[in-house]
């Protein structure tokens, strides 16, 4: 369910908070540099980070997945952006304009910049490490439980979907055919799953209560947090890149 894959590169070894900062800087810069040059330069930097983390091949499926949306941006803005003046290409009655194409390209770049910045965190950080780091820095342990529990519950629920589907099919439920037939199948599939998981919440709540979940004491941690020596340098560098972006916007108009 998570895109994270373990590894041992300089990015993997960083603590989650530093990676959160890197992703945050990337997203802030996405909106700070609205121009084509700015967006492209930022994408190059982000791809460099992803490349040195050895996860580019894992980012490709994500990039391909949103490619359709990127193409839609370019086409739609090329056709109808209010700023359109100069026709660029004609296909019968359809005219693509230069201004709109540039707007569409910028939007597509923005999409890929946001994605790449987030992937710096997502591809190389174990979600549960991230949550633990946040709890360590003062987030509520209940919040920690909720986030971790989601990651554990989803695979369990997905496993039970197969069972429920088979059971309902064996009782004669149609899952193929006209739209109305398929729509009608949705409730008998979801109903048992919802009821079952709600009944399980009661047992889970009991189990947690018995272990002192409702207490207000701060929990201690099983694992030590590992901070590599260069983490502080990376944080400073991220902030330097942010300043560089501000300067680029100011001086070059990117």
């Amino acid at each position, binding site marked *: *369910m*998570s*895109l*994270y894959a373990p590894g041992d590169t300089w990015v993997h070894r960083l603590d989650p908070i530093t990676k959160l900062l890197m992703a945050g800087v990337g997203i802030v810069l996405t909106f700070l540099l609205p121009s084509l040059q700015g967006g492209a330069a930022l994408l190059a930097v982000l791809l460099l980070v992803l490349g040195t983390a050895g996860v580019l091949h894992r980012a490709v499926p*994500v990039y391909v997945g*949103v490619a359709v*949306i990127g193409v*839609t*941006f370019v086409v*739609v803005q090329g056709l*109808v952006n*209010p700023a359109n003046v100069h026709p660029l290409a004609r296909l019968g009655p359809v005219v693509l304009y230069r201004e709109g194409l540039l*707007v569409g390209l910028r*939007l597509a770049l*923005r*999409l890929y910049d*946001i*994605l790449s910045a*987030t992937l710096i*965190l*997502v591809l190389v950080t174990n*979600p549960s490490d991230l949550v633990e780091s946040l709890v360590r820095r003062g987030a509520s342990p*209940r919040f920690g439980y*909720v*986030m971790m*529990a*989601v*990651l554990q519950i*989803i695979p*369990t*629920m*997905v496993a039970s*979907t197969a069972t429920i589907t088979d059971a309902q099919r064996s009782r004669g439920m149609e*899952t193929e055919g006209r*739209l109305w037939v*398929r*729509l009608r199948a*949705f*409730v008998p599939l*979801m*109903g048992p*799953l*919802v*009821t079952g*998981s*709600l*009944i*399980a*919440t*009661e*047992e*889970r*709540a*009991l189990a*947690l*209560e*018995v272990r002192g*979940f*409702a207490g*207000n004491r701060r929990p201690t941690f099983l694992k030590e947090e590992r901070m590599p020596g260069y983490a502080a340098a990376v944080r400073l560098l991220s902030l330097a890149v942010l300043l560089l972006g501000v300067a680029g916007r100011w001086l070059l108009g990117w």
Partner: protein
Amino acid sequence: MQPQMPVGSLAVAVAAVREDGASRMHAPEGYPARCGSERREVEGIRGGARGVAVGSKGSPWALRFTTLTVVLIPVAVGINYVGKLFAAALKLPLWLDSIGTVLAGMLAGPWVGAISGAVNNAIFGITADPISFWYLITSIAIGLVVGYLAFTGWISSFGRAVVLGLIVGAVAAVVSTPINVILWEGQTGNVWGDALYTALVGSGWPIWLASFLDEVVVDIPDKLATVIVSFLIFKALPERLVGLFGGARGEVASL
């Protein structure tokens, strides 16, 4: 007593430990009259977190943060995810990915609904779908609106649930539109919606209005179906489960 619950002695023990001054509260209206020992068990579980009382049906905004409602949140996110899976498996032209958020609102009120929505988009944002993070506010709005309206009688009949679905769709569209305008000049990335957007902007409509209609075309059918499905499931839930979370049953017999 439902047979699938191996609680009994364990829960009584919990309840007994909590006798010493942990806050007690009334079972809300609609909690079915059962044998005394089971009532005590459930009160033991519910009185847990920080002694926040379970709101009786007084205010929809009463905080219902007990261990049970905290555990409900990840389950709601799981239900969202599985709803999306089933919709894809049945090749439905809808997402149906907020059934859990809607149910959490119906079961435990607007706050729990809102948190379920927020956690949903935050989790998928950091694990599988970075773009979903930006629509966190939309999910929060859905949870709040459903929670509030469910507790003020808008799921008492099928007709009212349909109206609730339309309201939720409208709210989702209103909240998503500014996000779409800020991020993508108002496009949604959904083919049907964007086709409408193209036609409208092409004939001179303002971007924000075209963007709103783009979102409406996508959101109203989806949220209407989501709320109707959630309503049907909610009505079919065992009374005992709904009572656990202090749920919003319209026509319950008081104790």
